[in-house]
């Protein structure tokens, strides 16, 4: 059940960098690539170079005025008031030199992944630089400037006319992509995330189900703070299978934020690496079952860049390439190369040991609540009469 996989990468993807104190750090992409090369599963022939998205491509989803504002911001010519109107220059999305081009490269990388899969050059493609799901059509938000996922899906609709299932496993709700296709019955969005009661962006309730012709094609599975692997995997697998069976997509696009791990500083979820092994396995299986293998995977959030993200993201590629997640020891050469720079001790195994996840006293209540959310979501995957 394995197919040809492509890894989209160039150093240009690392230029999306707000400042050294900012939690969003694209070094994660480099660390992951390096880990895969050290593990001898990623080779030069697997890598395809991303292109820069054109203005017309960005405008498939973004407002032209917003694109122009970003170009001005890129060269320091956007004034503060105008910037704030577009969500630019805030603590979350501060201005940086060359930000338009850096962001357009991430979008271009997702389009490169799309073309590679839909032109038949590969079955699966991975752009870890993308997955910026909070971007709106004329506003930056939540560390996201251009929404590469939304642009890529518009691009698929425009150029290939395929039915797209978007699956978002970031711990934050995939709001930007959801609202972009809220009225579109040809794009089904499914986001599993920590409930918005406490966590940004606050949306993603199970009753957000789409409007007009798109009614019934938005799925949200808000799970409780401190959810662990067992419950995450159980509700996620159940929902993903039922939604795919219901929607019968032609292609699956996944957003792979790696911030539901118990080490992640920005969220309250408590997953371990087990969840990040299951996520790509399931996407891979369902892509082969329903979409002839067509699967495009993007990156996303993930703020423990040393202990969590490289391992979690590398498993996506391992599954794409070999059909299985890796296990056992991480390559010693990789650990040796980076351990000096890491402020924390990097785990030496692919899998997490059982002492990683703390004891959560309300585990049973949390699991029950998640199960309720799942049952509520599943109502819309069933025929009523």
């Amino acid at each position, binding site marked *: 059940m394995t197919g040809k996989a492509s890894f989209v990468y160039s150093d240009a993807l690392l230029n999306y960098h707000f400042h050294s104190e900012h*939690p969003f750090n694209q070094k994660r992409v480099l660390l992951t690539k390096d880990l895969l090369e050290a593990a001898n599963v990623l080779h030069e022939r697997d890598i395809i170079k991303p292109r820069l998205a054109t203005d017309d491509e960005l405008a498939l989803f973004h407002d032209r005025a917003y694109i122009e504002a970003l170009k001005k911001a890129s060269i320091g010519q956007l004034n503060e008031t105008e910037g704030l109107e577009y969500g630019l220059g*805030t*603590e*979350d999305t501060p201005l940086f030199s060359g930000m338009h081009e850096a962001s357009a490269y991430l979008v271009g990388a997702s389009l490169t992944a799309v073309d590679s899969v839909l032109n038949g050059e590969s079955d699966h493609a991975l752009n870890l630089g993308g997955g910026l799901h*909070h971007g709106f059509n004329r506003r930056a*938000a*939540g*560390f996201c400037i251009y929404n590469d996922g939304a642009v890529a899906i518009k691009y698929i609709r425009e150029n290939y006319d395929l039915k797209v299932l978007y699956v978002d496993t970031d711990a*934050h709700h995939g*709001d930007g992509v959801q609202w972009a296709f809220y009225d579109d019955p040809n794009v089904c969005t499914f986001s599993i995330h920590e409930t*918005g*009661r*406490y*966590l*940004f*962006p*606050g*949306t993603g309730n199970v009753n957000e189900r789409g409007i007009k012709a798109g009614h019934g094609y938005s799925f949200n599975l808000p799970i409780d*703070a*401190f959810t662990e692997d067992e419950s995450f995997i159980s509700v996620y697998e159940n929902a993903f299978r039922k939604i795919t069976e219901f929607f019968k997509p032609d292609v699956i696009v996944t957003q792979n934020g790696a911030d539901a791990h*118990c*080490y992640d*500083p*920005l969220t*309250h979820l*408590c997953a371990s690496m087990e969840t990040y092994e299951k996520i790509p396995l399931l996407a891979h299986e369902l892509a082969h079952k329903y979409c002839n293998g067509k699967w495009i995977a993007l990156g996303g959030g993930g703020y423990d860049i040393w202990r969590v993200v490289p391992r979690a993201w590398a498993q996506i590629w391992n599954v794409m390439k070999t059909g299985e997640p890796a296990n056992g020891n991480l390559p010693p050469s990789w650990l040796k190369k980076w351990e000096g720079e890491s402020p924390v001790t990097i785990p030496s195994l692919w899998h997490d040991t059982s002492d990683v996840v*703390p004891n959560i006293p309300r585990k049973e209540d949390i699991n029950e609540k998640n199960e309720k959310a799942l049952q509520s979501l599943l109502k819309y995957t069933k025929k009523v009469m």
Partner: protein
Amino acid sequence: MLVEEVMKTDVITLPPHASISNAVELLQKHRIRHIPIVNEDFSIVGIVSDRDLRDASPSVFHGDSSNDSALQNEIKSIMSHPVVTIHPLDFVEEIARIFYDEEFAALPVVKNNILVGIVTEKDMLYTLIQLTGTNVQGSHIEVKVPHQPGIFPEVTSIIGKRKANIISVMVYPFKDDPNYKVLVFRIQTMNPLPVIQDLRNAGYELMWPNNIAEPKI
């Protein structure tokens, strides 16, 4: 917030001599649940609710009801009156009390004896959603503070120093303890960590789930 900011002004009304069937049609067509009954000068003389109309309608078990003569009676025969009304300059907080105490689901807004709007329970709930700020992207933080003067500006200045934009603020009682309050903030950022850390450093206790020091143990 004033009633005039939340009321609907395109009110569907009927004269007292209209038929009950006419009112039933209007409820269905406009998907509303209350119809104020007004005179020619738009002064309010009564109100009918969907429940009044249901009570006046023949049972579905009685077969074809389209010719039922009861529905041809005048609406004034079943309307409620006198009507409790509110003014555009009333506070939303005040009229919430009327909704709660009287168990009404809609209140007509009257100015100079003329009907100018209507506020429903649904409008009230939407106002609540806006007050809580949950309709805007943001992160949620709850801080337990001593119930004493000067605390609020102290806490907000900590948030302000991090240039975090506050979307909404609420003050809750802390369980049954009158010596404490809970301040609830929604701030417009995906990264509330610096603010949380500053609040902790200043000695404030945060409420679940941010009351647990990193990592999440």
